[in-house]
């Protein structure tokens, strides 16, 4: 793994960010976590991220908005969405907006890792 990929995790549940960060860092990823979307989007202006893992339902700016904004401003960033409720409409809408993957909670971290790897492999 010669290149250090940067991953951003946005979820208002602190544990989601913490655990994802801990696991992904073991694999050599650089991980930053955010509890709200607004500061995360601000951060994107400063630094380039390869993958964004975002929660779907959040107070303020929600996951859908994050997806749309990111795809508009930084189409090359891979967005993976996780959600607490399996809503088919939301999934379809997300896919239309070019979401890379869609995970319902509880999230299997291994699957999430595999999805990230797949996305980054495609990127090469």
């Amino acid at each position: 793994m010669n290149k250090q990929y940067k991953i951003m995790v946005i979820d208002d549940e602190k544990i989601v960010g913490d655990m994802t960060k801990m696991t992904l860092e073991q694999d050599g990823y650089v991980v930053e976590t955010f509890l709200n979307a607004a500061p995360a989007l601000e951060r994107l202006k400063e630094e380039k991220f390869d993958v964004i893992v975002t929660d779907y339902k959040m107070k303020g700016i929600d996951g859908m908005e994050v997806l749309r904004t990111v795809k508009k401003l930084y189409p090359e960033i891979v967005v993976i969405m996780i959600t607490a409720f399996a809503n088919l409409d939301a999934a379809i809408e997300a896919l239309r907006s070019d979401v890379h993957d869609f995970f319902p909670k509880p999230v299997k971290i291994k699957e999430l890792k595999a999805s990230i790897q797949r996305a980054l492999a495609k990127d090469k």
Partner: protein
Amino acid sequence: MQLQLKIWHKMIIGIAIPSLIVLIGSIFTYEYLNDVKDRQEFVEIADDIKEDVLELRRNEKNFFHYKNAEHRDNVYNAILLLENTIKSISREIIEDIGQEDFSMLNKSVQTYTNYIDELYESYQDEIEVTEKVREEGRKLEDSVGKGKRRGGLTTSFVLNLRRLEKNYMFFRDKKSFLELNTALSELKSAAPDCTECISYKEAIRNLISTYRKTASIERKVRLTGKRLDEIAVKIARRERQKIRSFITVTNRFLLAAVALLCILGPLLVYKTANYIVTPINRLSEITKRIAAGDLNVRAPLKERDETYSLALSFNTMLDTLRERENQLVEKEKELYQSKKLASIGILTSGVAHELTNPLNNISMIAQTYTELYDKLSREDRLAFMNNVQKEAERIRDIVRDLLDFSKPKEKTFRETDINTVVEKSLRLVQNMLDISNIETYVTLGAGLGTVFIDEHQIQQVFVNLITNAIQAMPGGGMLYIETRLSSNGEFVEIDIRDTGKGIPPEFLPHIFDPFFSTKGVEGTGLGMSVSYGIIKNHKGNIKVQSKVGEGSTFTVELPVYRNGA
């Protein structure tokens, strides 16, 4: 078996009985007047008899005086008059007078007539005898006057004798008789062998005996007349007495009848009116009680009159009414429960989502823990497990809130702070609000005092109002919750205001009706009617203001609890 009469019959009886009394009284009065008339007749007849007898006695006296045929005939005529009067007496009156008195009257008249005949004969004898005495007297006078002196007989003696004879004939009393008798004895001693003297004496003796006989018959006539008089007077008196006592009795009877009518009449009219009105009144009383909400009353089926079927229909109506009410109560319970279940359903989906997060957290901790076990420090591991514990508690709290809400509970009214209830209710729906993209602004008033409420029920009302608000804002929006004291300080007011689609004005009046649901609105939460019922049970009010496109405001008013007041 009790006699059962229809009102119609009762009225007839009520009118008929006093009328009957009046009729009977009238008949009696009529009879009484007739009787009085009859009696009057009897008295008149009795008076006639008495008068006839008096007339008879008057003629009798004249007959005694004149002793001639003319006066005898007058007596006969009087007797005939009396007989005619007696003959005219009807059998009825005879009975009234009494057979005994009547026959005695008849017999006495007969006897009287016989005595009068006898008396007349005796009077005739008297004339003869008197003539004889006068003749013999004249002979004696002549013999002395011719100078044929016989012993001590003198003209003056004879003349004196003749004077005494006349006196006796005139007076017919004891004195004149004694004087004459003495003179006759002297005549015997003066002239013992005088033939004229003997004849004269003989004639005088005849006169005396005839006079005695007449006197005896006269006495008998008088006695019989007197008896007739007595009988007539007795009959008249008895008739008068009878009529008097009859009038007294009849008077009393009439008085009693009038008194009876006066007392019984109004009493009867009152009773009849009562009899008619009582069942109607009873029904009216029952109607009042039904109106007051007592459906357990039943009209008694006492009278078999027109009110009977009325009472029957009444009871049938009441049965139906109570059955309906029972059904309604049952339905209300069902409704309450179903609405509550619906509410729980909505809450549950929210809760399920809410559970997903802590579950996911635990899952992720576990996965990371397993994955990085060797690389984790002791502190990390402890921190992991602490987090697991915290998340588990989070789950427990969520589940407890839901269970608390859904558990059926006995009503318990307690003095409660309304702000606490608002906060608890909000906690239950918080996740739904989050999911639905609704910003909540809560303004809890200070110094509201307490309310006396069943917290569980009021919480249900708030949850219902909030879920409705959420449903009214499918695209998200703002929810304002405010608690405050009413302007008069008697109520605590809780506003729940949304910025949803609003309720069309035509639906507003029906919003609290049971089974009412605005079309096209998915899910109803706890029915508005149930909320309404709960608030009404708390002696509170629930009001709604709404404008289509701007949102709705529901205001719940609950009376402030005044301890001991």
